[in-house]
């Protein structure tokens, strides 16, 4: 494999003489993050927890991309997949973003520990109003039954555990892959494969925990065994769509993947995107369908508030729900069925489309329920109105993740030149 390392010499040109493209992202990201945190701490008079939710939406979007990429990297290791190794490298660059997410998450943990009123997780403060009838959270039977899980110390421990697992897996997989570029030692392949086997279990566990802690407990009365898998499926879609965009960006760069990446790589990514579009729909539909069919009030209310107002009229979320069915599932599904749409501009279009509706999906999961002392079930719906924090948090976290990605991408080779499967990936044909 000596010949290939000469062909793909490290791109020193990127470091010397050129302007570092990542710097504006760092500065912009930090400024926007400061603004977002400011908004987060001040809260909002009309709806105290609204900035918190906006921050969570922005953070979740980028977290989901990273989580999906982590799973994909590990799944590819497990399958001993050959075609994907040059794509895997782009994900390895991106995985560094977990550190950014962990830091950006800290304000939320801090607010939870301080028991602030701006935190949307009602259960962190037992003196808050209990949903439904009058009284405090501390008097809520449903809360008391779950108090062993829903308490701030345990929540903080879980936050540490979740990020330790994500960052730890990402760190090792990155390091071993980069180190293999230098030494060409294939023991790293075996290590990565073994780590992935165990890592998939660990990641499945902590990702489920994250989905439950951050989104499901926004409404601690509600529960669904499927919820962790919903987050996994949404994350996989987001990660694939984001990777498609990264690949197109890299395909145009001389120090990136120009001349290395084949149309077939995009075709395969398009196929995976189609598969996970179907998987997301399957999971989302099954969850809805089972709750709809069994029609038990203790869980149906979660869907009711996403459909109707207290007076029975359709609310804004109903339209969002329809958009998720038809625009987040049906349109990408039909579009990706066609062979020619899995290449070039159509693929970019649908990747952007999916990412856009992915945000809507996150909104739909996080935003609607609003605690209220009135109403039969204690929740009314919050309108589908964007808030400044949504935008600033989204941009801030995004800019910082992209900054970290660019930094990482400029430090290492754009493809894993000494990976034992590299020639399969470079000589890919359908």
């Amino acid at each position: 494999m000596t010949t290939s390392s000469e062909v793909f010499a490290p791109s020193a040109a990127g470091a010397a003489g050129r302007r570092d493209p990542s710097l504006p992202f760092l500065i912009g990201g930090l400024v926007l993050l400061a603004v977002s945190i400011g908004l987060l701490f001040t809260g909002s008079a009309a709806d105290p927890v609204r900035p918190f939710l906006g921050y969570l939406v922005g953070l979740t979007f980028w977290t989901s991309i990273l989580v999906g990429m982590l799973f994909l990297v590990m799944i590819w290791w497990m399958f001993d997949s050959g075609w994907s190794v040059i794509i895997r490298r782009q994900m390895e660059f991106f995985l560094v973003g977990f550190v950014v997410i962990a830091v950006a998450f800290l304000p939320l943990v801090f607010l939870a520990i301080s028991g602030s009123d701006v935190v949307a997780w009602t259960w962190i403060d037992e003196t808050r109003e209990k949903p439904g009838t009058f009284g405090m959270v501390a008097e809520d039977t449903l809360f008391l039954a779950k108090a062993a899980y829903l308490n701030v110390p345990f929540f903080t421990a879980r936050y540490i555990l979740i990020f330790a697992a994500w960052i730890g897996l990402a760190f090792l997989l990155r390091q071993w892959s980069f180190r293999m570029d230098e030494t060409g030692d294939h023991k790293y392949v075996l290590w990565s494969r073994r780590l992935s086997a165990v890592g998939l279990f660990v990641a499945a566990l902590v990702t489920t925990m994250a989905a439950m802690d951050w989104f499901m407990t926004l409404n601690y009365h509600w529960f669904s065994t499927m919820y962790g898998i919903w987050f996994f499926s949404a994350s996989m879609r987001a990660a694939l769509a984001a990777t498609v965009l990264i690949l197109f960006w890299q395909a145009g760069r001389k120090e990136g993947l120009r001349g290395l990446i084949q149309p077939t790589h995009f075709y395969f990514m398009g196929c995976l995107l189609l598969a996970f579009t179907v998987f997301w729909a399957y999971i989302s539909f099954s969850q809805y369908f089972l709750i709809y069919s069994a029609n038990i009030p203790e869980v149906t209310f979660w869907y009711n508030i996403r459909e109707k107002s207290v007076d029975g009229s359709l609310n804004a979320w109903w339209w969002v729900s329809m958009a998720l069915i038809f625009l987040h599932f049906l349109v990408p599904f039909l579009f990706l069925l066609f062979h020619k749409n899995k290449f070039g501009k159509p693929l970019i279009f649908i990747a952007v489309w999916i990412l856009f509706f992915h945000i809507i999906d996150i909104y739909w999961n996080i935003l609607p329920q609003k605690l209220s002392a009135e109403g039969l079930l204690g929740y009314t719906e919050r309108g589908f109105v964007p808030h400044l924090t949504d935008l600033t948090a989204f941009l801030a976290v995004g800019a910082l993740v992209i900054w970290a990605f660019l930094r990482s991408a400029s430090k290492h080779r754009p493809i894993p030149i000494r990976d034992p499967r590299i020639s399969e990936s470079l000589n890919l044909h359908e």
Partner: protein
Amino acid sequence: MPRAPIIENARSFAWITDKVCGIVEGRAPRWWWIGFILSGMLASFTLMGLIYLTAVGVGVWGLSHPVFWGWAIINFVFWIGIGHAGTLISAILCLLKQKWRTSINRAAEAMTIFAVACAGIFPLFHVGRVWFGWWLFPLPNSNVIWPNYRSPLEWDVFAVSTYGTVSLLFWYMGMIPDLATLRDRVTMVYEKRAAEAKTAFAKSFEFAFYQFRRVFYGVLAMGWRGSNRHWSNYEMAYLLLAGLSTPLVLSVHTVVSFDFAVSHLPGWHATIFPPYFVAGAIFSGFGMVLTLMLPLRALFGLHDLITQYHIDCMCKICLATGSMVGYAYAIEFFIAWYGANPFEAFAFVNRAFGQYAWAYWIMITCNVISPQFFWFKWARSKLWLVWILSIFINVGMWFERFVITVTSLANDFLPANWNYYSPTAVDIFTFMGTFGLFGVLFLLFLRFLPLLAFAEIKSVSPQADVHGHAHGNTDKAH
């Protein structure tokens, strides 16, 4: 780090053809006859059980208040689940371009179809008056009432019949090129066999058998002639059927899970049921594929076509899906507590420590613990161990359905309503007989149809590469 070869010892195309065709062209080995007769005898248990049931009524099964689903539904879900691995291997692994599937997909698809046939028996006879079974389908009947589309049982009718039909189409279409090869060899085989025949009776038998084979393979091969213009459409159709079978196979066990999950019964209403059932189905199916293929590999000397690599892959899939099932058990338990519904919490504690705890712990041991051996290479390479573990998986998955069906029904909301469920001898004989039925069908398949998809095996073998080198060896070329 070269890839493991899919075919060992670099066998030629002609060797592969002779090896696989030889299975159906030679005389039936003695073990085949023994197996066939024993399976036939075992299958007669099902026949007798069903005749008795039809004559007397469903009461001959151990169904009684409050457990009215009993073994019939357990066996149905068990057999349907077995079938799923066949479709997974043929469809999903095809889409994932897992070339190792080619050695096992044909037998696994056959397994799917025979398993669906075995599964179909139970709900059909569970309706009681089986001569009204056609009411399940949307056909006008004497009461002018149509089937109820709000019932998951009706969805099941559509899901299972579609599954059986599409699996059959897929299986058949995959076989067309191989049947053409068999067709083209019929005369050659006859000449050889006729020359060996000594007596006049043997000669006339050979001639009659020749005529049968000529028509049988001739008609089924549809005049396939290997034209590349045909292959082009064929490959596309195959890919599309794989693409259709994938969502189909996921939907079938999903719909089966709806039978339970749309109800209100504690332990049944869990949103995770669809993917959990699908994972369990694939798990049990791969268990069954291992159970069947390991002996066949030894009996027919298929070691070069079904290699240790194939067995490794199947073991790893068992490990992965077994662990997914373990994840579902864990999440169900957690949410049963977290949901703070006392009935739900009781249902799960009762499963683990109640009157059916023995079944629960068999399930956990077989499904969650036994596949963990597959982490280790030494375990995967000891074939007797793999075979025993595969049996454990089959047993464990049957008990999973037992635990789900029976514990929830036997101990529901009202303690005064509780009872202990036991099957009757008719239950046991009918179920055991389906293994005989499955055996009969599978042995007939072995004798008359190509056991391995050899056209596909050839297409993934190294000498099929038009550029004259194998994919796996490319890094040596540098």
